[in-house]
């Protein structure tokens, strides 16, 4: 690899569309989410720099590791969570039909990387050794088993139709057959709901239900570590939205980076707005209600989506 190649690779990973871009973009989107949420609730809402101010303030604060906690896991989990979330983006096409990295099967890897943060929330909470953290941790992992299946199935279905396991090939297929997107609409709805569960937002903010278990896994977290976890959740929202945009809304790609990027911003904004509306108009469910919903309603619809796509594929091919 040449020096220039290495530099451009480093730029890719660290600046654009890597870590720095994601961090800034996710905070801007956090602002959009919070402001919209506030406006819908008849409140004023925060100023534009609030997410940045929150991050800087938290990062400057003292961090306290509980005496009973496993210090190593407690300290490293936020970093692992953030790293895996940022890495997931490299396999998702953003403004063209080709992702920065691609291979046949990168879809599985992306979903795997997106699962890691939830596992780190569990470990972080469990090894904090406080009752509220441990309850939050148990709820996080329980909730993961509920939303993960519908999410995977609903993303699997479009891939079956496109006959590929690569995100980049998937978008290429749908660019060639734009109308086939319409088959995936029920899957899109399920994926949105599952994303709410993954991001632990109302109505699925059960693992960090403030009035019940304080802050769940994050109860004992403070300072830099908490700042990193919060950033992880923000970045996870963006990566999740990017994934959904790539799989379910692959239009406007292939007309050059400028149009592609503008289209990308609009798509992510749309998903962020949908998520903000959902958390405004709904109340928090109980964990048993959440699991029942995911297994009795969301998973069957996602299964149906897979069946439909299999049938459609047979007819079209």
């Amino acid at each position, binding site marked *: 690899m040449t020096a220039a190649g290495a530099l451009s690779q480093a730029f890719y990973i660290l600046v654009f569309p890597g870590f720095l871009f994601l961090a800034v973009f996710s905070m801007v989107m956090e602002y959009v989410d919070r402001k919209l949420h506030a406006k819908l609730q008849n409140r004023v809402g925060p100023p534009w720099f609030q997410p940045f101010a929150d991050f800087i303030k938290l990062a400057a604060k003292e961090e306290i590791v509980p005496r009973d906690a496993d210090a190593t896991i407690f300290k490293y989990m936020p970093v692992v969570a953030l790293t895996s979330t940022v890495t997931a983006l490299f396999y998702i096409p953003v403004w063209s039909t080709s992702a920065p990295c691609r291979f046949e099967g990168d879809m599985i890897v992306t979903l795997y990387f997106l699962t890691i943060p939830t596992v780190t929330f569990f470990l972080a909470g469990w090894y904090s050794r406080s009752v509220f953290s441990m309850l939050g941790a148990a709820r996080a992992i329980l909730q993961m088993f509920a939303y993960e299946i519908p999410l995977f199935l609903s993303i699997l279905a479009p891939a079956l139709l496109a006959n590929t396991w690569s995100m980049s090939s998937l978008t290429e297929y749908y660019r060639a057959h734009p109308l086939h997107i319409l088959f995936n609409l029920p899957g899109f709805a399920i994926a949105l709901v599952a994303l709410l569960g993954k991001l632990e937002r109302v109505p699925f903010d059960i693992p960090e239900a403030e009035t*019940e278990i304080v802050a769940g896994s994050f109860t004992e977290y403070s300072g830099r570590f908490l700042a990193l976890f919060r950033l992880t959740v923000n970045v996870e929202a963006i990566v999740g939205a990017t994934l959904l945009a790539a799989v379910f809304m692959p239009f406007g790609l292939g007309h050059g980076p400028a149009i592609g990027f503008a289209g990308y911003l609009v798509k992510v904004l749309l998903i962020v707005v949908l998520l903000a509306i959902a958390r405004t108009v709904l*109340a928090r469910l*109980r964990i048993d*209600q959440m699991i029942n919903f995911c297994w009795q309603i969301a998973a069957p619809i996602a299964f149906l989506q897979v069946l439909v796509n299999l049938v459609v594929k047979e007819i079209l091919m």
Partner: protein
Amino acid sequence: MADSCGVKIPIGPQHPALKEPESFLLTLNGETITDAGVRLGYNHRGIEKACEGRSYIQDIYLLERVCGICSHSHSTCFIQAVEEIAGLEIPKRGLYIRTLVAELERIHSHLLWLGVAGHEVGFDTLLMYTWRDREVVMDLLAALTGNRVNYAMNTVGGVRRDFTADQLQDVLKATDILEDRTKHYIGVATEEITFVQRLTGVGKLSHDDAIRLGAVGPTARASKVERDVRRDDPYAAYAELEFNVATSDTCDVYGRAVVRLVELMETYKMIRQLVRNMPDGPVAVKAPRKIPAGEALSRYEAPRGEDIHYVRANGTDKPERVKVRAPTLANVQVVSHMLKDGNLADMPIVIAAIDPCFSCTDRKISLRTAGSATAQPVTWEDLRLRGIAWHRARGIDCTRVNRRIAEGGRA
């Protein structure tokens, strides 16, 4: 989740679900609560004792501060007992104004509760909207009485302010707005699916248990216990008003929400009657400074349930004994019953459903050493000696100062 089997988790004294310091010790099996213990007493302020050292007029303002939300309830309840001992005949207009403020207070208390209930189940949008609309009645109360809470309307023998015809028109206007909004909230509370799911079947309290444990107010009425002091033992102007007692037979938190919302609709009806039939005349009679010896018990239907004040007078200008039984004290035993076999996630809403007001509740009647089962009544002298010993153990000794004051007094 075998690992969390038999886990004890402390809810309080400081916890996000509780707006006041109170302690609930829950034993969990997974997410199910197998045992719940309630401990009161973090907010004891010695109000009853303080009343004995102040005149009746001063006590009105002190007792108004028993509760920040049902402040008018406590001062009215106290004043009714005092007026009964003194044998005062309160002018009709005074009683009507007292009742009007009481019902306006009920509106702001119930709207506040609805918002809190929304917050406890993670439905903050409901909180934001109900509290916005609650401002209508808060502003109205401020315009009528001068204060948003602690209205200071009562005095022995009547009320302290008269309302003009314009002010009464404002009341009607505000009532129209509030009625409109309440209808909207009835829709939200009974139709919004996640909200209904979180309230239905939660915090079950059967009709028999409600009676056995002595539940009061909306908590009891949601278990089909048709009790309302306003109808059963009318005070102020309630005997002349037409209204229904709202009840529900669902015996759960959902029923308690419905009862409160229906009660709001009844309140609007009552306010219109009060304004329409408001008699002319004085609002207060002159009351003696010294109240003749005697005792009286007064009942009052506060927004949270039946409030009871007992007053014993000894012929001076200060009461000999004042006893306050806030509605939360009657309902708090019910909470631990309702929490048992419930879900941890339902804990906040079950506690909130009685509309608890813990600082109103805390009274001390006996002391016990931690861990011992026997309790003994405490005298004032016991408490004094205990206090001196406590401070002495921490290096604060006032013996010399006291002696010097005593000597100075002698010289």
